[in-house]
C-alpha cells in the first residue's frame, strides 16, 4: 500500500515572454513510495527533479497524469485537486523542505519552526521546535532571532527543522544537506532514518552520493523521464 504514487506525470513550461517558447521538462514519470521507505530522485541538474517535488507538493501545476497521496482513508489526486484540498493535504499529509528558507521578517527562528503546527499546539510546538533546533546545532541564543541574518547553513537547518517537526505521512526534501557540514549532514541522515522508522514515506533529492546511499531505499533516475 503506497503513501504516494505518481502515474504518467508530465510537466512542461510555456514561456510567453520568450515568444511562447515551450520547454518540456518531464513526461511519463512513474514511481511509488511505500510508508517507511525513502526514494531518492537522481539525475543531472535541470533534468526536472525539483519540478517533480514541487508538483507533488502542489507548488507547480501538473500537465498530465496523476499524483496520488493517501490521506487517512481517502486518496487525493494532487494533479487535479482544488486549491483548498491541497491546503488541507499540506496540513495533514505532507511536509516539504525547499532548497532555501523563505524568511519572514521579525519572526524568531523557533517560531518559524513551531508555526508549521496547528495553533492549538503552539506551546508544545515551541518546546519540540527547540529540541529539534538543538539537535541541528542551532545555538540557544539564535533561536529567538529572526533567521534573515543567519548564515546559509543555519537558515537551511531552520528550514529542515520546519519540515521535520510535524509528523506527516509524506516528507519531501530538496537538497536538505547541500549547505551543511559533515556533522550536521549526519544529523539529517539520522532524522531521515527516524522518520522512516515511524512509517513516513520520504522523497529526497541529494547530490552527495554517501548521504544518498545512507538514506535511500530506491533510486529513481529522473533523466529517464526526459520529455521529448
Amino acid at each position: 500500500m503506497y503513501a504516494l504514487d505518481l502515474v504518467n506525470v508530465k510537466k512542461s513550461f510555456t514561456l510567453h515572454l520568450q515568444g511562447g517558447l515551450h520547454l518540456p521538462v518531464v513526461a511519463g514519470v512513474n514511481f511509488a513510495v511505500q510508508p517507511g521507505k525513502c526514494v531518492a530522485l537522481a539525475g543531472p541538474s535541470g533534468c526536472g527533479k525539483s519540478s517533480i517535488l514541487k508538483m507533488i507538493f502542489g507548488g507547480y501545476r501538473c500537465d498530465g497524469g496523476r499524483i496520488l497521496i493517501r490521506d487517512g482513508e481517502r486518496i487525493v489526486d494532487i494533479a487535479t485537486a482544488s486549491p483548498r484540498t491541497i491546503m488541507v493535504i499540506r496540513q495533514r499529509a505532507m511536509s516539504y523542505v525547499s532548497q532555501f528558507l523563505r524568511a519572514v521578517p521579525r519572526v524568531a527562528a523557533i517560531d518559524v519552526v513551531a508555526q508549521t503546527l496547528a495553533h492549538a499546539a503552539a506551546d508544545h510546538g515551541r518546546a519540540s521546535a527547540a529540541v529539534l533546533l538543538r539537535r541541528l546545532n542551532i545555538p540557544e541564543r539564535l533561536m529567538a532571532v529572526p533567521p534573515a541574518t543567519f548564515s546559509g547553513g543555519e537558515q537551511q537547518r531552520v528550514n529542515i527543522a520546519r519540515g521535520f517537526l510535524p509528523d506527516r505521512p509524506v516528507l519531501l526534501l530538496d537538497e536538505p544537506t547541500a549547505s551543511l557540514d559533515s556533522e550536521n549532514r549526519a544529523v539529517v541522515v539520522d532524522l531521515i532514518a527516524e522518520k522512516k522508522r515511524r512509517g513516513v514515506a520520504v522523497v529526497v533529492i541529494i547530490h552527495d552520493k554517501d548521504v544518498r546511499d545512507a538514506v535511500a531505499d530506491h533510486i529513481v533516475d529522473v533523466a529517464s523521464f526526459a520529455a521529448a
Partner: protein
Amino acid sequence: MIDTADHPLLQAEALTKRYGAQIGCRDISFELYPGEVMAVVGESGSGKTTLLQLLSAQLTPSAGQVSYRMRDGVMRDLASLGEAERRFLFRTDWGYVHQEPALGLRMAVSGGANVGERLMAVGWRHYGRIRGAAMEWFDRVEIASDRIDDAPTTYSGGMRQRLQIARNLVTNPRLVFMDEPTGGLDVSVQARLLDLIRGLVGELRLAAVIVTHDLAVARMLSDRIIVMKDGAAIESGLTDQVLDDPREPYTQLLVSSILPA
C-alpha cells in the same frame, strides 16, 4: 489555519459590474472558506477595488451575486439583506481596512475612542471595559498605550494603519477586506505591518480578501490568489502555484517584473 468545516463563508457567482459601457469587473466566481486568505492582484484599473466593493456590499452588482454565511449558518444573498443585517455585518462580523487610514478612522477623536466606538456600536456600555479592550488592542498592534488619548492626526502613517486594524478587529470579525493595506508606507513600516497582519490573521483565524498590486504582499499573506486584468479573473490558484508556475502571459509578466530583493 484552515477550518475543516467544509462550508464556504463567502461565495461570488458570475459577479459583474458595469459602469455604463465600462466594465468594472466581469464574471468572477470563487468561494472563500473560514480562515482562508485570498489575495486579489493586478495593476491599477484592473477591477480589484470594484471587486472588493462588490464583495463587501458597498456596490450592487450588475449581474451575479455575492452570498455570505451568517452566524446562524445560513447562506444569504447580500442583495436580499435587510438594513439591520447589513449593519450587523459592517459593525461586527466584517472589517474593512482602507489604503488611506483617514477613510477608515475618525480623525478628530482619540485613538482609544476609535477602537472603543466599534464596541459601543455593538452594545458595550461599560467605560472601564471598553478602555481596557482598547488598551489591549493598542498593545497587540504595537502602539504605545500613552498615545491612547491622542487623536490619530498626531500619529505616523504606520501607526494610523495599525490603529485602523485594531478598530476593525476589536469586534472579532470573521471576514476582513483590505484594500492595499500597506500602500503608501515606507518599506520598513510595511514589513512590520505585514508581519502584524500575518500574525493576527493566523491567530484569530480570520478569512480575508486582500487587494494588492504587490506580489510580495500576496505571497506573504495569502493562501490563494486571483490575478485580474481588464476586469476579468485571468488566473487563480494557490498563491505559491500561481507565483512560482504562472501560466498566463500577463501573470508571467507580473511575476517577472519583481525586482529581486
